[in-house]
């Protein structure tokens, strides 16, 4: 059981000089594990290559936390569900026992063909279910919250669209 919190401000000391705080309104709830992970997630941007954060021990744990209302688990759960291409893959994800991992992906990583391509930096949520490694990009931006409903245009959207393309 992962307790959920709906306090208005939570602080967590990560490093001697880094403090993470999450301002949360009554509609925002986040599980204790995600609260503890938040600072590490932010620091992924600054970490050397291959830095990762284990979000949950399994996808089932992620789903459980999402169902209890954790906003970050919900978002990451959605990302992993969108990475599955069939109901069978989703079922395999549910019964898998591999960790749900988050890492940081600079824009050019897509050239390796691992991810859905993007011209911008992203976080990546992933979970391995043999023989497939499920992963999806989690876009982000800095600065003030965006109302929480509709994601703003990403830099990918600014580029040339596929409309009127001649292939």
């Amino acid at each position: 059981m992962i307790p959920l919190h709906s306090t208005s401000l939570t602080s967590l000391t990560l490093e001697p000089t880094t403090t993470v705080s999450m301002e949360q309104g009554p509609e925002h709830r986040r599980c204790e594990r995600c609260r503890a992970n938040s600072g590490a997630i932010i620091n992924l941007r600054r970490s050397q290559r291959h830095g990762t954060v284990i979000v949950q021990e399994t996808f089932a744990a992620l789903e459980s936390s999402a169902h209890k209302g954790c906003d970050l688990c919900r978002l990451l759960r959605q990302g992993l569900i969108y990475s599955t291409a069939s109901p069978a893959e989703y079922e395999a994800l549910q019964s898998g026992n591999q960790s749900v991992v988050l890492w940081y992906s600079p824009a050019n990583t897509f050239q390796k063909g691992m991810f859905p391509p993007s011209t911008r930096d992203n976080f990546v949520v992933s979970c391995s279910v043999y023989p497939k490694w499920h992963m999806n990009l989690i876009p982000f931006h800095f600065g003030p919250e965006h109302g929480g409903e509709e994601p703003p245009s990403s830099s990918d959207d600014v580029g040339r669209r596929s409309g009127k393309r001649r292939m």
Partner: protein
Amino acid sequence: MQAIQSFVAGWISTCRDSHADCGPRGIRSDAGSTLPTRVIDLESSDKPRLFITKEAPTDLRSQPYTALSHCWGAGAQHLTTTQANLEQMVRGIPMEEIPQTYLDAFEVNRSLGVRYIWIDALCIIQDDRYDWQFESAKMCDIYRDAYCTIAANAAQSNGQGCFMEKHGLSLPTNSCRLVAEENGHRSTVVLLPPRPSWKNQILSSPLNNRAWVLQERLLSSRILHFAKDAVFWECSELKSSQFEPNGIPDVKLLADPVSYTYAFRNLTSAECVRSAWLQLVQHYTKLGITKVEDRLPALSGLAKMIQAKTGDTYVAGLWKSSLVEGLTWALSGKDFKSEELHNERPYTAPSWSWASTDRDLGFLTETDMNKLIGSAESAADRDWRFDVEILNVNIQLAGPDPTGQVLEGSITLSGHIQNLPVVTTRSLPVGSTDQIDPGSLKRSLQPGVEAQGSANFIHLDYPKDPSIASFPALRLCHLSSNDRTRTCLLVLEATGKAPDQYKRIGRAVLYGLAPVTELDKRIIKLV
């Protein structure tokens, strides 16, 4: 369907009204083209029926129809039209036997305002060999001329339907804001809700991993993809989804191995098609196919479209104008099936054609040879030459489809045959039944044949007796630069049925072979 109806209507109207490539002047031959031989008539919502076009009044034969692209699914009982139930299907298809994917497709059809739909399982008489060959040969026209193709991407079988439960939307998901304070400086990161991507939902879908579906996708003028978590649109000029209804940015489509093959639609010369076809075949051979005999038929519609544009001659999966490059394939698949090892596999193509195998493979083109030889010199300093001359190609077709199944085929050519001595680097488990390590099929040449210390390998298509000390090999082509030459050879085995008649058993790529002259050449037949 209601939730995405406005998106679909928008895509259809945009495509119909403003996409030149998708309309009558583009890939579709005629907006009001003739119905296929048989279609499903959905006029009656509770009793769809098989409609025989030629039995209808002439004015009813030119109607819009959709086509379904779907996975039949393994092991299940499939509702099909057969010689025995044909009359019953014309009177009415029993609703209780119609699988969910078809029912969902009917619903999509009705929402599009289209009365007819073509479904292979119902519109081809599946136990009539001639009808199957005749109708499957018309795939090019059927998918090209369909008003829209309905693709059931996420369904692994017909029972699963087009509309999947949207688990990703089952919980409200918002942006997540994280705030960090460091040295008194506060930074905020807002994680945004993800989206279903083309790569995850279309390219990785069960549907697009089926061999038959490749040409269905490429031949269709418009496709509505019913993926697991979203509906996607695809036509010649636009790819979009309900999440990105105005178009998916090009960068997100780069991973699509099929995108480049759209080039076929605009290509008119055999030369332009050459490399694109080899790439297409490489992709195609990675896809799943239930019956190995379908290896050529499942690509037949696409071959016909190219043939019509280029006028080139199709020979068992390759093009006559670029036949030598087409012979350079080597297998890259990992598993052998026991029927391959025991020669029990049904005949699908002559040994020199990629269609003679069940596994994925790669060709060795001039571009690949350039990469192998290194980048020290400019491409202009290199000499790419064919070492064989094709004298005659003979193909005997198995049925009425000129780009379909073949009974036999041969190439008569003039070239240089030499013996390649080999040493076996690992023991070859000849006589084994299953799952042979493909590494065991790599045989290195004896040191005396190696040049410049480079690795020379023979890639055999099937395990051979390890006691064989040498193989005959035919020089196909070579790329030479200032200081080195790389040669591609076909590894052969005499059939014993006629003098100078051989079959292909592998491919070799060697460094440093001495040049040959015209006098060294002889005429052989490859079967």
